[in-house]
């Protein structure tokens, strides 16, 4: 009913399937790592901005509220 067995073709199929899976996994891992790194960087820049901003009750803000320049 069916054709002759072709185990070479099956071996090729398994190799290609494994290769494609490995490439997909590598791309996925690269993408996830890049995303996490970008996230970390944006978190760090957010915190550094917060640290540099004068607080509402800080000496600079008090001076500016009295009409003095910050200089």
């Amino acid at each position: 009913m069916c054709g002759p067995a072709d185990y070479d073709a099956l071996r090729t199929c398994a190799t290609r399937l494994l290769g494609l899976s490995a490439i997909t996994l590598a791309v996925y891992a690269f993408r996830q790592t890049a995303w996490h790194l970008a996230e970390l960087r944006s978190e760090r820049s957010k915190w550094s901005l917060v640290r540099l901003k004068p607080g509402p009750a800080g000496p600079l803000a008090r001076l500016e509220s009295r009409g003095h320049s910050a200089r």
Partner: protein
Amino acid sequence: MAALAGAVGGLLFLFVFPQGAISTFAHYVLHLPAPGAGIALIVGPLAVVFMLVASRVARRAGGAFVGALAFSVACAGVMAVLRQPTGEKGMIGSPWFVLALGTSGAVAEIALLLTRTLRTLAWRSVLAAGGANVALLIFCWVVIFPRTMGWVPWRVVPILLAVSLGAGALAGLAGWALAIRLPDFEEPDPRR
């Protein structure tokens, strides 16, 4: 986009499954009866996954049908360019294959439309994929194999229908899992 998704699926299918691999796996490794085990277990489910992906990226009715046609036309086109024979079963790469996958895609499309009231996309995908895979197998049994291999024996029908339904449902889940991870092509997410 749907045609692109289908064509990519067809090219991947041709690359991963060289001629003879599907029959050997289905009949000599799994000892499933012929004819149609390879269609039910590998060709149909793989096509169905790409139909669902095509439906998702198209975001409108007709995506699954276009994806199925693009899948089969890509296979037939590459085989015609490389002058590959369609095999003794006269299936993959032949005009009948385009017609068979077109029918399967139409069944998937109708199932997706009829199950629109279902809330979860996962169930809709499973139902559409099961229906499309069974439709593909029945089309091959009734239209293609009588010309090349003869009619399917009755004792084989229930086994292969069950295999087709099960593999189609699993492919539906796989297609859904793949489709929901895809970026939205119609309305791009501003966070991406």
